[in-house]
């Protein structure tokens, strides 16, 4: 009985993604059948081919990988150093200054681009001549993200302070302790940050929508919307394209499942 319930719940939750795949494989005629067929009668794999030819899929794929890679780099670098300062060094006011970090998480979990700050930030980046480039999306990630700072701080606080003390007595400076001693120990948490940051960039819609105007710069999220306005009625092609956007995220999740699940548990811890 319990299993029936668990299976039903899981199937329901995965149904949009299952349906995406099934719809992607249907022919135009089968698409307009009612009741809908739960499995494609004859899988039209060509839909994937047609979908990727209907818009510059590969170019947008490349743009999105480029965007995600830069965001991962910025996030790992900046948040590691910042969280180190919030956890591995004792200094007056440290814990007081951490309150604004927590407060920022609560209102600005979507960081850096969110509906509250987007208008002035756009005006600022426009003045700096940075609109229509990746700079407004990438540069902020090199200045820390409150959620990632929190996550890494939680992790690094669990590393015993003795090892840093011992290294200090041996004459190591803070930078050496950070890079040689703590960096290897913090690796699992840094992988979590890299994964969340990468998936976040891959899934980002609002940021590219506001800042990327030239269609050569489009990410997949914008490309897909563009595709929808052009070929909106052909849902099988739209879903084929969507599958190709969702698939990498699912693959990354399956490969790094542990990091995702443990990482979130860490983020929620108190």
């Amino acid at each position, binding site marked *: 009985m319990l299993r029936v319930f668990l299976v039903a719940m899981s199937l329901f939750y995965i149904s949009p993604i299952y349906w995406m795949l099934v*719809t992607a494989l249907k022919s135009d005629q089968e698409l307009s059948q009612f009741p809908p067929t739960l499995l494609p009668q004859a899988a039209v794999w060509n839909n994937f081919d047609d979908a990727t030819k209907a818009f510059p899929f590969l170019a947008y794929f490349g743009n999105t990988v480029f965007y995600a890679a830069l965001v991962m780099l910025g996030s790992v670098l900046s948040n590691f150093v910042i969280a*180190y300062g919030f956890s591995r060094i004792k200094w007056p006011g440290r814990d007081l200054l951490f309150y604004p970090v927590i407060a920022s998480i609560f209102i600005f979990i979507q960081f850096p681009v969110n*509906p509250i700050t987007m208008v002035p930030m756009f005006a600022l980046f426009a003045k700096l001549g940075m609109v229509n480039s990746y700079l407004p999306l990438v540069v902020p990630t090199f200045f820390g993200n409150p959620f990632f700072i929190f996550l890494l701080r939680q992790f690094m606080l669990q590393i015993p302070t003795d090892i840093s003390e011992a290294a200090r007595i041996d004459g190591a400076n803070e930078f050496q302790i950070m890079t040689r001693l703590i960096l290897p120990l913090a690796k699992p948490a840094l992988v979590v940050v890299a994964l969340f940051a990468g998936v976040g960039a891959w899934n980002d819609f609002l940021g590219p929508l506001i800042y990327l105007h030239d269609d050569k710069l489009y990410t997949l999220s914008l490309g897909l919307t563009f595709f929808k306005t052009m070929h909106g009625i052909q849902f099988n092609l739209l879903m084929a394209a969507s599958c190709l956007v969702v698939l990498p995220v*699912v693959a990354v*999740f399956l490969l790094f499942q542990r990091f995702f699940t443990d990482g979130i548990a860490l983020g929620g811890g108190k």
Partner: protein
Amino acid sequence: MLGLLFISPWIVGFFLFLVYPVFSNFHLGMTDYSGFGEPAWIGFKNYQELFHDSLFWTSIYNTFYYVILAVPLGVVVAIALALAMNQKVREARVYRALLYIPSIAPAFALSMMLIWILNPRYGLFNFLLGFLHIPAIDWLGDRRFSKLAIVLVAQFGAGQIALIFLAALKAIPSHLYDAASLDGAGYLRKFWYVTLPLLTPTILYDVIIGVGLGLQVFVPAYIMTDGGPLNSTLFAALYIYKNAFEYGRVGFAAAVSGLLFLINATVAVITFWSSKYWVNYNID
């Protein structure tokens, strides 16, 4: 002050990407600015205008409607998912993965999928509801259902927060359940008197994050309905976006953003303040 040096990127980021835009909203909100040229100072005119703007009130109403439904429902769904993930069966990992995956799939792609699933004529959802003898509903095309549809769709993203609940569930010491069993408590009473009180810190976290995300909900409405039908899904974030980036009313949009920030901050503070009445921090 070595520590300050390490956190200095964040200090810059905090002021540049959060404090500056929050204050700039109030400053820009007092100007007439199209995005080109220089903003012209007009005092409180934007605020006067928006108080008489029925679309502004519609967007606020829609946003509150969304938050009031989506946040409590989100807590219930996330706890239900966490309980499912926590069952001691061999294939628990599989359930956990399947329940979690929709929450990391891109929202824009899921939204497009759901346009098709919710299609009144060919959609899977109405087909399934047909078995319960529920007549076909035009979920996204009927103003009576459009907001509700977006609230329900958002529940596919509950897996993320469910994992936090799962961690909280696993942290509950088993001796508490044993003691409750000795007192003759059944499953429901154990949930109500042991599990739920110990989940309250996580519920607080979920509510605050959920309110923030809910007040700023944008992507599903932008993709699925573009604010329609008849502005029934015109949420505050979409209204800000359209004013700033489609109508060239940047000053007006900034005024709305400023108000949205004040609303968000006020609700967050009230939620925190209320927590001393209902959040339980003692494990034993």
